[in-house]
């Protein structure tokens, strides 16, 4: 076996490519978790948006319109969750699961109803998200294989990480949002409209979830297949836990998933048993979540022993 061939520079772009769908899902989960809403409906939101994106792109021939439509449907699904959770006080996990199952069924129905086929839909008329090609890199193999032909969404995903980081940790809105998540009662006392804040993050989460779906069906591939998310939304939630609600660390978690999977894909080519290799992403998920939970409980302990949380939140409320 040739290790030099498995761990070469083409691994960099493969990792980015594989981790981007998970990254969008992770960011969608991160922003709601900051407001203490566990968004496991990301998977379903992704699947429906992926379907809508393909539909709109196929019929209109515009990828921009398709992404917009995906974001709209993402927000719509997120709003169903938000209303059920915030207004009707339904358990967020149950609602999330319902959204996931609903997405599976409704896309199965839609693919037959609107696209006239079953299972998989591919067509040359589907316009994908353009790739960024830099002709100057063409003759340098390293730059060509590493930085050329990135999908527009792959670049945007990375930009979005830092945008979210900035919003969460460098703006007043972000500070208030975090206080809502930590201690809603104190935030309320400080004059923050907690419910409004939660609706706002659900809308943002829907937009990002919509992007995640659109990327899967128009950026990564140009097709729609039943259940094409295949648990990527859940992996995003795991990455969110890994990051402890910090978008940058969550991104690192996503890259870790992408890296293990790409290396696994290459190892299979050299005769490693598929059963073992296919297990890797899940083992990594379990490890990642255990480590992050361990870290979480450790920091919680520290917090409890030193200061009362209310004091921290109040400081946030005044700003």
């Amino acid at each position: 076996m040739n290790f030099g061939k498995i761990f070469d520079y083409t691994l960099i772009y493969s990792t980015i490519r594989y981790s981007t769908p998970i990254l969008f899902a992770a960011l969608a989960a991160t922003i709601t978790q900051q407001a203490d809403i566990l968004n496991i409906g990301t998977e379903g939101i992704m699947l429906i948006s992926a379907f809508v994106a393909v539909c709109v792109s196929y019929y209109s021939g515009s990828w921009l319109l398709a992404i917009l439509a995906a974001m709209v449907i993402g927000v719509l699904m997120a709003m169903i969750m938000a209303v059920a959770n915030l207004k009707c006080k339904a358990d967020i996990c149950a609602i999330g699961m319902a959204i996931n199952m609903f997405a599976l069924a409704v896309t199965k129905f839609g693919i037959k109803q609107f696209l006239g086929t079953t299972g998989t839909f591919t067509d040359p008329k589907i316009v994908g998200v353009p790739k960024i090609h830099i002709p100057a890199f063409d003759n340098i193999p390293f730059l060509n294989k590493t930085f050329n032909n990135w999908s527009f969404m792959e670049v945007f995903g990375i930009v979005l990480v830092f945008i979210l980081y900035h919003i969460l940790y460098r703006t007043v809105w972000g500070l208030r949002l975090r206080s809502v998540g930590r201690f809603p009662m104190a935030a309320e006392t400080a004059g923050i409209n907690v419910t409004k804040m939660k609706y706002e993050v659900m809308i943002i989460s829907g937009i990002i979830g919509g992007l995640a779906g659109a990327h899967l069906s128009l950026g990564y591939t140009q097709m729609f297949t039943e259940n094409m998310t295949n648990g990527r939304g859940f992996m995003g939630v795991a990455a969110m836990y890994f990051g402890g609600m910090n978008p940058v660390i969550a991104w690192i978690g996503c890259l870790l998933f992408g890296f293990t999977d790409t290396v696994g894909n290459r190892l299979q080519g050299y005769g490693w048993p598929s059963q073992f290799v296919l297990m890797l992403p899940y083992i990594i998920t379990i490890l990642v979540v255990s480590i992050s939970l361990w870290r979480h409980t450790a920091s919680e302990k520290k917090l409890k022993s030193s200061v009362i949380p209310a004091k921290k939140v109040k400081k946030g409320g005044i700003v």
Partner: protein
Amino acid sequence: MKKQTRKKWLATFLAFSLLIGTTMGCSSKPSTASSGTGQNSAATGSGKKVRVALCYSGVLGDKSFNDSAHAGAVKAEKDFGVEVKELQSTQSSDWESNFVSMADAGYDLVIGVSSQFEDIMKKHCPQYPNVKFAILDDQVSGKNIMSYKFAQNEGSFLAGAAAAMFTTKTDIKGINSQKVIGWVGGMDVPVLHDFLVGYEQGAKYIAPDIKILHAFAGSFSDPVKGKELTNAQYDEGADVVMNVASGTGTGVLEAAKERGAFAIGVDSNQDNIYPGSILTSEVKHVDVGTYNVIKNVVKGTFKGDSVNMLDVNNGGIQLTDMSVIKKALGDKFPSDITTKIEDLTSQIKSGKIKVNHYQGFTG
């Protein structure tokens, strides 16, 4: 307070009804291919119309195995006026209940499409002595069961040989100098290994020093994973990758198109999905098997406990004639491949070349 509890109840009710609605949508979705005749009247056998049920371990639209079986059923429906009902599901938990419900509903013939039905049929078929059964792509013994098997290893042998020759034609754009070819499968099941054994043997027959990469996606319906595995094999120097992966395979073919490299189709003729990117397809005539078993029931020639082999010799397995890629590549197309494949085909037919089976796979 009272208002709040009522709201809570309403929310629970809404969530619950959504849940029920979706789970029902998820599970088996019977779809009638014929012009919906009443099915509830369980008139067993003796009616005018022969009623046939096909149970899939997946969904239609894979442009591959399942669609091929569907095509055979549609043809039989047209030719013999039989009533066809098709049950699809990607959930393995549904397959057994789908199958049993069709046997219960008094269909004359119930077909298990794919080897996934082997255990289910072993378990349930003896309980329905008056119903005729058939399995495609596997073998189950029983007085009321007809089995249709495919010599997929022979077709893969030809596909492997074609790939091994094609990877040396470096003047074609997209072919590198390395002698490496790839193979991507769906789930890690014996039938797929049978494909792989033939593919490797065929490639090594042409070039003993060739390197063959192979991988399983672990699913028949994850094109994203299929695409990623294929890209990984292209990164490792492969330029022709064969897919044996149903829905996952659409990702394999798309990767070929996107990278400007080549893929090989499977089960159905997939050459036209991305013209110019697909070298050839190993056609497994599942449609012929489906059509034949229905014909046997209609004509009264159904023979229980029989195994029918569809192979290269009787045309049940073949490679496409590569006319699509020939057109796309123009005069760059190496015509020695087609002549060599014809030669190999006749050698397999005459028994001069013996293609191996996967160890333990009953040939």
